[in-house]
């Protein structure tokens, strides 16, 4: 549905992206994952024909976007990073305006707008000025706006940026619903690893160029990531460390400030339950279990180009100046910032 090949964009002496190549299949949710300044927005803006590339090609829904931008734009619903609704228009007027702008026939505008208002639970606010909506509701309206002409492709640039955790979750759920129920192809840019892991079928890690592409779990496996897990215990003991080491997939274990710190290899979703079951069976009183995202570890490994299988202690702060990977408090979200 989206074919991007060899994209290059320079802003004066600065090369924003170079040789960006990837493809997104029909009905797929594809994430462009990278720190700020990695070229995500530039790539998105080229795909939706807002800026031209210096080299490369973009094909959207079978249309060459560089040769026929008007036709390609018709197939794309675009959500820029900044809120993109008109505050002095009502929710309904916003949707009606964009429906007409994209050439939706007059008779279809009303029913289509009503359906979107229902889908996005905005019916009760249809006649309210968009400026009076909360940030989360405005983002919901912006996504509805991007869908109003029923495009097969949806480009979402940092759709949860600046939202509180509750609104961010709502938006993520909506993106998944739109992809599954409406059959849209979604290209989503984010620096939020948790979001990428939760929402995307496949992810491309970008930093000026595409560094890696694959399913989130594949990326973690490909990078041979060891995921650190911290188990807080009411009764820590060396015996429990030995029990942990006996569990398949646990490569190391030690006690640290009353916590059992283990490193896992393979799929943490299957190893963590086995580890906790073994510890409970051995008499452990578990207070909490914390682990970082395996994608987060893969991301850091790929972006830094560091040694494979490099392990970090869980939930810590990145050591380099470029990447700050942390587990967001309360939300369990891995966030990468540059």
């Amino acid at each position: 549905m989206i074919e991007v090949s060899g994209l290059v964009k320079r802003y004066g002496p600065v090369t924003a992206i170079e040789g960006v190549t990837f493809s997104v299949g029909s009905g797929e949710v594809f994430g462009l994952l990278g720190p700020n300044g990695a070229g995500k927005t530039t790539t998105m803006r080229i795909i939706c024909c807002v800026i031209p590339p210096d080299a490369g090609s973009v094909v959207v829904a079978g249309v060459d976007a560089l040769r026929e931008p008007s036709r390609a734009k018709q197939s794309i619903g675009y959500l820029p990073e900044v809120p993109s609704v008109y505050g002095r228009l009502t929710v309904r007027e916003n949707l009606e305006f964009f429906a007409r702008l994209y050439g939706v026939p007059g008779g279809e505008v009303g029913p289509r707008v009503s359906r979107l208002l229902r889908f996005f639970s905005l019916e009760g606010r249809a006649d309210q000025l968009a400026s009076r909506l909360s940030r989360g509701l405005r983002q919901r309206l912006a996504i509805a706006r991007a869908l109003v002409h029923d495009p097969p492709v949806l480009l979402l640039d940092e759709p949860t940026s600046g939202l509180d955790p509750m609104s961010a979750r709502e938006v993520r759920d909506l993106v998944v619903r739109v992809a599954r129920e409406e059959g849209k192809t979604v290209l989503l840019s984010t620096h939020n690893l948790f979001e990428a892991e939760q929402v995307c079928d496949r992810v491309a890690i970008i930093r000026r160029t595409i560094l890696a592409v694959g399913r989130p779990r594949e990326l973690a496996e490909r990078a041979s990531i060891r995921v650190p897990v911290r188990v807080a215990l009411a009764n820590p003991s060396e015996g429990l460390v030995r029990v942990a080491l006996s569990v398949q997939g646990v490569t190391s274990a030690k006690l640290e400030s009353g916590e059992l710190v283990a490193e896992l290899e393979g799929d943490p979703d299957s190893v963590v339950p086995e580890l906790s079951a073994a510890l409970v069976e051995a008499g452990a009183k578990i207070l909490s279990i914390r682990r970082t995202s395996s994608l987060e570890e893969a991301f850091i490994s790929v972006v830094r180009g560091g040694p494979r299988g490099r392990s970090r202690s869980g939930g810590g702060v990145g050591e380099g100046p470029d990447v700050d990977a942390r587990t967001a408090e309360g939300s369990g979200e891995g966030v990468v910032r540059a």
Partner: protein
Amino acid sequence: MIRWSRVLCVLVKDWREFSRSGWLVGTALALTVYFGVVLPAIIVFGARISGGAVVPISIPVRLGDLPLPAAPEGLDEVARSVYAAFSLIVPPLFLVIPLAVSTVMAADSFAGERERGTIEVLLAAPLTERELFLAKALASLAPGVGASWGAFALMALATNLMSADMFGGWWFPSGPEWCVVVALVSPLYAFLAISLTVLASSRARSAREAQQASAILVAPILAAVFGQVLGGFAIGLEHLLISAAVLAGLDAGLVALAPGRFFSGVRYMRVD
């Protein structure tokens, strides 16, 4: 080829937005009422009270003493002074209406849309730059021209009602010059203001900042007023027609330049 349905769609959207901004509507209404009612009242009643001296005392000229070739015969000093004010001072000042209203609208439509970030979704929509510029320029032009015409109608009514006794009946507009000012110079001047605002919007960080570019257009207005009041020159019909031709040329030049500058500025406003 221009797709007028899409141009109209953006234009109506912009008008709807203007109509909901107290600041924009207030500016247009205040100028219309000021030039349509308040200014004629000041001139007519000022002349009546002062006996014909409606210019500041520091200027040692009585308006009625200025050469007014088209003035009707047999006017007394007060009527002659009123006639002079509406023939020499008010026509150039009248251009402040399209200048101010269209500038405020254009700044909101171009720089404001950029400031609020909504221009990005318009650039991603199936619209050409020319269609988008045309829609927004027309949306900004119409309120300025509409306010001018509204003010002119009000001014004609108010002036005639307040001064009919001096002239022996309704007399305003005083000559064909007014028709050229209202129908030709005023829209062309408004378009010049819009084009300058669009140029400024390519760099301005806010709508307010973009408005300042067209402030330079106040200078010719002041020159026309003071030049005539001080007896330096008198603007006649032929001068107005020449001015209209010059304005049309400037407008054409800026229309070729401004949209490209603006859209280029908008496209590269952020680098990620």
